[in-house]
């Protein structure tokens, strides 16, 4: 027998069968598209080869990384999720970072290319007490590719993380990402995720306030066109009192695109005086597009404020007409309105000055 390092199926790689739409978590999202691709390991150059660590950010020693890796996944209850298992099985590039107070902004760029290969990254961030970090993460694919991303962040007391993930894919590329964050009291998380252009994208931001009394602000924007599917399943769990959540998730669905948002918020009995607000807004640009959005509030504590809402709209005729009546052509007016719609998420990216990826279809000049 010749030992092979190559798995033949996704099932082999993850050590578990692909989830099917019969499971509630995958009801709207079919991984069948993935099954059609043969998993081929990354053969390109070290995706982190050009990484420059800024002041205040240092690599964790291997042994320490081994010790902490998986902790946030476990505490946010997703160690056994299929995309996480896939990441483990794919032997990801690992990067463990310790962040001290006053750290300079960090940029992480990953390009999954177009060679039809699987690029897997496992990132672990440890923010020391009082540390703060602005992290700008960019992911891209320019053709067939599968990107498996597992990121963990531990925010110690009074640590602040401003994290922007912009994932700009391709119709024949897939992105599976878990972003697991644990927050100690007094810490603050601003997590902004933006995804567009992937044939399939599934993002799972998962946050645990380990003893409550932390601040979590989530902003999401996903854009689907053609036959693309984008799915965000978020979870925020308060394991103590006085926690705050402010969540806005926005969707633009064009063509025959499908968008899924599922926002779980868990407020157990210990989480008195939690103040949580979740809003999901969807903009439908075509009759063939489809949007499924669902809040999933599990509230046991009685003294809490939990607001949630969902809106579904189209481009407003009166707004279009107003722009047109000033000489702005209909297509440019639509683009302005769309850019405006996306703006309240994009402007919260840590590097908001950097423009939206220029290839994003609706911003392409005709």
């Amino acid at each position, binding site marked *: 027998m010749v030992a092979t390092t190559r798995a033949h199926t996704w099932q082999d790689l993850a050590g578990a069968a692909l989830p099917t739409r019969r499971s509630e978590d995958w009801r709207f999202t079919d991984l069948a598209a993935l099954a059609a691709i043969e998993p081929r390991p990354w053969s390109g150059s070290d995706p982190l080869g050009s990484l420059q660590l800024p002041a205040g950010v240092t690599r964790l020693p291997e042994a320490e990384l081994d010790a902490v890796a998986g902790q946030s996944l476990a505490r946010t209850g997703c160690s056994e999720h299929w995309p996480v298992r896939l990441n483990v099985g794919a032997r990801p590039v690992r990067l463990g970072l310790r962040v001290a107070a006053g750290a300079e902004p960090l940029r992480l760029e990953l390009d999954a290319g177009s060679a039809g290969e699987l690029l897997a990254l496992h990132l672990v961030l440890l923010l020391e007490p009082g540390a703060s970090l602005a992290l700008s993460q960019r992911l891209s694919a320019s053709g067939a590719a599968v990107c498996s991303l597992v990121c963990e962040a531990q925010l110690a007391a009074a640590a602040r993380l401003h994290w922007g993930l912009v994932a700009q894919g391709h119709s024949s590329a897939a992105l599976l990402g878990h972003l697991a964050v644990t927050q100690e009291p007094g810490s603050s998380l601003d997590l902004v995720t933006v995804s567009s252009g992937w044939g399939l994208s599934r993002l799972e931001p998962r946050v645990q306030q380990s003893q409550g009394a932390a601040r979590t602000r989530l902003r999401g924007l996903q854009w689907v066109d053609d036959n693309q599917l984008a799915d965000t399943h978020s979870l925020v769990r308060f394991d103590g009192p006085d926690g705050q959540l402010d969540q806005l998730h926005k969707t633009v669905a064009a063509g025959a695109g499908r968008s899924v948002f599922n926002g779980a918020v868990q407020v157990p009995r210990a989480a008195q005086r939690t103040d949580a607000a979740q809003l999901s807004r969807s903009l439908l640009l075509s009759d063939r597009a489809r949007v499924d959005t669902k809040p999933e509030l599990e509230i046991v504590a009685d003294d809490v404020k939990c607001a949630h809402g969902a809106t579904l709209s189209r481009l407003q005729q009166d707004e279009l*007409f107003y722009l*047109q009546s000033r000489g702005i052509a209909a297509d440019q007016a639509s683009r302005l309105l769309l850019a405006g719609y996306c703006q309240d998420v994009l402007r919260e990216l840590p590097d908001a000055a950097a423009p939206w990826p220029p290839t994003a279809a609706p911003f392409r000049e005709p």
Partner: protein
Amino acid sequence: MIRSDAPVLLEVRDLRASVDDQPILHGVNLTIRAGEIHAVMGRNGSGKSTLSKVLAGHPAYTVTGGSVTYRGQDLLELEPEQRARIGLFLGFQYPVEIPGVSNLEFLRVATNARRQERGETELDTFAFEDLVNTRLAVVQMDPAFLERSVNEGFSGGEKKRNEILQMALLEPVVAILDETDSGLDIDALRIVAGGVNQLASPDNATLLITHYQRLLDLITPDHVHVMAAGRILRSGGPELAHELERIGYDWVDQELALTEVG
């Protein structure tokens, strides 16, 4: 200023329009020549805003009859943006809020669309800022409004000033101002009226839709029209507005009853 030999800028003939199959305009006639200021008055719901939106090309309204000629050209076959580019301007009764779109960027794109049509060069951000500052002075508006989203969170009066700022930038040939005076405080009314007077010239024309004589005290119209039930029932000079101030609109019902019998 009336000169019967001045060129006709806008000619509305027996214009009929409906919304959702509900007829609203029932044959409007109106001729506007260069250099003229017209006022259209009339009860709530008489069709004044509908007329202005049909002229500007709002897609919710269907023209079911009649014609509109703008400087010899069929206006009704043009897209709304094209109408604007060739010099038609509508100051909205209810200016629309557009979240996320910067007022400055909006004004620049709009101004450049009009400039392009006139064969002028497009203005870059810096050149535009110079221009917009001179126009801000016309309406005495705080530059801080440029940094905000279009009309978002503007007070009623601030929105109206923003409309006149747009007019000052676009330098229209025919400006229709739909109740630009309502919601303005006394000082703002003077400023806006001053702006409109400043922009009026022998080559352009203004159509003011208003309910109040106090605007017409500041901007003297050459013609005053009374609209009722989707048509222009009576036209006259500035004295007609004074008369309305005195007698109100009760006579309208009698006259309408007569026209129906006739």
